[in-house]
């Protein structure tokens, strides 16, 4: 197995809940609760889960955009949380984040050319005279035109803005791109364009993606390995084909049975989960999924299942598998 590009071990991120007169901490939201995953160079790892399951927090703590509570993150073997501010800043170009919202992630007062090119200047990655050319190259690679360079963000559509966000990350020649629901704010026809752009860029530049999404069909199209999150914990990771053909965890089964398929007459078993996702401030005891799991037994309420290796490249956290 080649060395991992991004290695996350037992990562935890708790957000304090403050209230009252003295602003005391009265509880914790366990947004990410003991997650481990590793991403190899060149692969696309998909992270799926419903809203509030902590997918985005994993993405943000993985590049230290928010600080962790506990655990370890290694990027190319470097302990990210052991770096000081300047060392971290110097490492930033190698790991880029693409934001979910293409509207709020671009500064309304900065021209596109500046937004894309300025990081090259701050990192000394290109001499001043070449920056304009580099920006033009990356604009072209992302399907934007040269005359866009002098424009302001409000002159673009959502899809174009997302391309700008991608171009901004790409110009730095990153090795890892974390894409935090990059298409969920776009309409479907644009989604396809952006996803194909991700694919094309991976082929031409050998990029590694951590692709965060709640859309299983997007993930199936793009990712080679998939991790499923529930309430801050990883419940299953598996290569794409294994996961889609033979999901092991009951939550994964339920998710997959909810994916719409374009064959109206095909009847299939739909697993409907009852209730809502519990509050991450007060997660259920034992297996976090036992309150909604159709197969739950007594043991699930008491004992948290271990995240076990179950052969091949598959890991699952369930007593019953």
């Amino acid at each position, binding site marked *: 197995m080649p060395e991992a590009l991004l290695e996350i071990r037992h990562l935890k991120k708790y957000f304090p809940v403050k209230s009252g007169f003295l602003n005391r901490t009265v509880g914790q939201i366990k947004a990410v609760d003991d997650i481990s995953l590793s991403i190899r160079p060149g692969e696309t790892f998909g992270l799926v889960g419903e809203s509030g399951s902590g997918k985005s927090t994993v993405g943000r703590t993985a*590049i230290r*955009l928010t600080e962790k509570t506990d655990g370890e993150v290694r990027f190319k073997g470097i302990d990210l949380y052991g770096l000081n501010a300047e060392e*971290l*800043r*110097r*490492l*930033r*170009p190698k790991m*880029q*984040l693409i*934001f979910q*919202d293409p509207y*709020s*992630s*671009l*500064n*309304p*007062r*900065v*021209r*596109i*050319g*500046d937004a894309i*090119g*300025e*990081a090259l*200047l*701050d*990192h000394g990655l290109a001499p*001043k005279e070449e*920056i*304009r050319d580099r*920006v033009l190259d990356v604009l072209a690679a992302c399907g934007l035109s040269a005359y866009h*360079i*002098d*424009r*302001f963000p*409000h*002159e673009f559509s959502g899809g174009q803005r997302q391309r700008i*966000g991608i171009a*901004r990350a790409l110009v*730095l020649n990153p090795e890892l791109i974390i894409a935090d629901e990059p298409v969920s704010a776009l309409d479907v026809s644009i989604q396809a364009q952006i996803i194909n752009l991700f694919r094309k860029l991976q082929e031409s530049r050998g990029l590694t993606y951590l692709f965060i999404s709640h859309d299983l069909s997007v993930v199936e199209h793009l990712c080679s390995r998939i991790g499923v999150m529930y309430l801050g914990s990883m419940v299953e990771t598996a290569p794409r084909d294994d996961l889609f053909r033979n999901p092991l965890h009951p939550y994964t089964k339920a998710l997959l049975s909810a994916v719409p398929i374009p064959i109206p007459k095909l009847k299939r078993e739909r697993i409907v989960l009852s209730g809502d996702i519990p509050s991450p401030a007060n997660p259920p005891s034992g297996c976090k999924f036992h309150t909604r799991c159709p197969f739950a037994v007594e043991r699930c309420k008491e004992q948290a299942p271990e995240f076990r290796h179950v052969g091949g490249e598959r890991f699952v956290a369930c007593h019953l598998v």
Partner: protein
Amino acid sequence: MSTIGSEITKAGTAGTAPVRSSMWRQAARRLLKNRLAMLGLAVVVFMFAFCFIGPLFSPYTDNKIHLAQMNKPPSPQHWLGTDALGRDVLTRVMQAGRISLTVGLASMVLSVFIGSLLGAIAGYFRGICDQIIMRLADLLLTIPGLPLLFILGALLSDWKVPTEYRMYIVMLMLSLVNWPGLARMVRGEVLSLREREFMQAATVLGLRNRRKLFNHLLPNLVPLIIVIASLNVGGAILSESVLSFFGLGVMPPTPTWGNMIDSANNMIDFQKRPWLWIPPGFSIFATVIAINIFGDGLRDVLDPRPRK
């Protein structure tokens, strides 16, 4: 500040690219439609022209003493009469305006500079910077401004500061009193801006603090700063007049609107010679009101928040 950034975007298209700041153009268009604000602007422009160009057309100088022409009422020779030393009141009002407007503008520029720089640093870096700057601001805010200015003015008289320098010291005093309020507003705005996603994006790109502060935060602060600055000028003019009226600001013979009213500060002048105090009084009134009206109009078009 936007040194390097502009090289990327404007380099190839210089001269041909139209100015694409449609946000500013929209704001200007909305401002032009606001009649009251335009009236305010017209009055401000008029006052500036009156004070800075007017004296060039006057046959008199502001401190030429004419004992034969003492306390004359308005006449074709002296449109607004003469004062106790036979000086032409109209000329003095114009000259006084130069000083008052200059003091107002200069102290605004200074307090806006100090206030927004310190406010931005406090809001952006937080922590100990924030604590030191904001506690200092709080300290200055807890002391009422006018008494503080009076004490400083009295100290100046005690230390026998030469009269020709007092004008500059008054500017400094006014800035000292004005910056804390400004710093608070700017800090508040920075606190909300720094949590915006585009600032996080700047962090992810690994931009330097200087670029994040000057190229990303500051341009978003400009509308707020313009609005605060315009409203600040009126207040500074007023404070200077008050100080000068009490003999603690700019000293005669340098005329300002405030000390001109002060020199008519006795029963006889007040009752019998209204031409001595009405013109400077009216000038203060008209200028400050006009600046505030214009500032309100600016706020309506530039600052989206306090719109009812």
